[in-house]
């Protein structure tokens, strides 16, 4: 198997080959590093590549296999991490100039869990500055480029994660999601992105954007891989007050249930408004297929949906300003223009707005539990209303507002689910006429990642969208 084919393996496939001693961690890691060398000049997915450390870890994992020892389900498998997570001894820039020289002294909880499960960390991935934006256009490190068309954005904020996984530079990646930052790049890059339930995965050691809305999750090429990574990442961490002590199912075991008997809700408004016709067509075709496979599809109300996006903004912007207040005063010119503007805008929200938004959140959770998730097991929507815009369309400034409009468009269908804190996945469901990926978003009740994964896996098995590779990766 050549480097290109090796790096294109799924985590599950590569794991089986490693356990059967048909492929070594050194071979897979070298293959990914070769793809990084080949593709980075065109993709810019990584901010830091830790090649020497990765080769050393891969060598240790290979020696352990020879000695009959397996650390865990990711033994010897190369992954990469958004540059918002602390990885001990590695630079953590958050995509910013302000933290350009910052080196983490400890592992984030999630990086530690990946390492304990045997993973090989290849490096740190590009992102929207401080994860505060949905385009991935970064003035300090330049944007990660979409492997399906390098003139286009990947979406963000986990832009490098989307590009690197789609192009085959790594087998899987970690992202964060405050308003859609895992699912948007997953949709625009044609991969799988899972935002688990709020509190399912520890955020300790990850730079916050908004404490109340931040989520951490996997970005992979298959749903099975997302389940595999979530199994490693999920679990209570007393060091993160928002991390819940909930039972952790074996997500990979529950994948095979199919969709027969599942009740899928189709929002009767909002989530299909002002959608690109090609996106709507692909998503509706996916829902028809799920129905033909045995799911029951019915229209469902989406209560408080007009109030939720504004309330989310009234929480996110002041929290982000609170995180950045000191740096914003001490080093204002070191921020990119769009992030600086959003932070400044946080000053226009009063305490009463924040508290009312948090009250609305509590009410929305109760109403959705009573009126939505008592009626259906899942809701299905487009992940984004559009395919990947051109980079030049997404370059924003406080004065032009153009980039902000792209951002508002991208986050429209994802950010209500951050407000609710329910699990949501984006899975590839088609391509536009000009060859750009389209994502289907499935969301379920709190703590029920199993149903989201099971339905997404069944859909993936019935289609071949996930098998298509970006032309850039194949060239």
């Amino acid at each position, binding site marked *: 198997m050549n480097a290109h084919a090796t790096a294109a393996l799924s985590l599950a496939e590569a794991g089986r080959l490693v356990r059967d001693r048909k492929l070594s961690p050194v071979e897979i890691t070298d293959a990914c590093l070769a793809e990084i060398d080949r593709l980075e000049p065109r993709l810019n997915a990584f901010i830091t590549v830790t090649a020497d450390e990765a080769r050393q870890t891969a060598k240790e994992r290979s020696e352990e296999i020879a000695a009959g020892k397996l650390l865990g389900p990711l033994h010897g498998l190369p992954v990469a991490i958004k540059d918002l997570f602390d990885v001990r001894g590695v630079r953590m820039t958050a995509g910013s100039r302000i933290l350009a020289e910052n080196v983490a002294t400890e592992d984030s909880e999630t990086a530690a869990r990946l390492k304990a499960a045997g993973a090989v960390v290849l490096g740190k991935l590009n992102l929207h500055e401080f994860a505060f934006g949905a385009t991935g256009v970064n003035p300090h490190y330049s944007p990660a480029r979409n492997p399906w068309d390098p003139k286009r954005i990947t979406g963000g904020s986990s832009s490098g994660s989307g590009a690197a996984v789609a192009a085959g530079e790594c087998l899987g990646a970690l992202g964060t999601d405050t308003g859609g930052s895992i699912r948007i790049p997953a949709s625009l890059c044609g991969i799988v992105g899972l935002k688990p339930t709020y509190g399912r995965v520890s955020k300790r050691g990850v730079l916050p954007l908004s404490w109340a809305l931040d989520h951490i999750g996997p970005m992979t090429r298959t749903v099975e891989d997302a389940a595999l990574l979530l199994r490693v990442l999920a679990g209570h961490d007393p060091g993160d007050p928002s991390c819940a002590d909930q039972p952790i199912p074996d997500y990979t075991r529950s994948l095979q249930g199919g969709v027969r008997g599942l009740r899928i809700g189709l929002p009767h408004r909002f989530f299909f408004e002002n959608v690109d016709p090609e996106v709507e067509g692909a998503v509706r075709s996916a829902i028809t297929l799920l129905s033909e496979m045995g799911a029951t599809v019915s229209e469902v109300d989406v209560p408080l949906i007009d109030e939720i996006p*504004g309330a989310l903004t009234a929480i996110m912007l002041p929290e982000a300003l609170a995180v950045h207040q000191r740096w914003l005063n001490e080093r204002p010119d070191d921020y990119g223009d769009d992030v600086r503007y959003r932070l400044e805008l946080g000053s226009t929200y009063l305490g009463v707005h924040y508290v009312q938004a948090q009250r609305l959140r509590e009410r929305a959770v109760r109403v959705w539990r009573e009126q939505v998730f008592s009626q259906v097991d899942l809701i299905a929507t487009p992940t984004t209303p559009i395919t990947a815009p051109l980079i030049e369309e997404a370059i924003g400034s406080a004065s032009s507002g153009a980039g902000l409009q792209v951002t508002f468009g991208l986050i429209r269908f994802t950010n209500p689910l951050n407000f609710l804190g329910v699990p949501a996945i984006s899975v590839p469901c088609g391509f536009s006429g000009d060859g750009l990926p389209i994502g289907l978003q499935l969301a379920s009740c709190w703590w029920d990642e199993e149903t989201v994964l099971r339905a997404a896996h069944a859909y993936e098995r019935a289609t071949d969208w996930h098998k298509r590779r970006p032309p850039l990766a194949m060239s």
Partner: protein
Amino acid sequence: MTHQLEEARTLAALAGIRVPPERKAALAAGLAGTKRIAESLAKADLGWTEPAAQFRAPKIAGP
């Protein structure tokens, strides 16, 4: 616009950040969005719902 500029200046000062003069027009323009959200939140029927974010008392070993 002068009134909005003054509002933006006051809010930024109360929030403890310094916004240079050349950025105040953009911030003032953003106030319209904040006011729409504020009006929507003010109209919401929240009853006696408590905020989602709650203080957590520390766990202390019993006597």
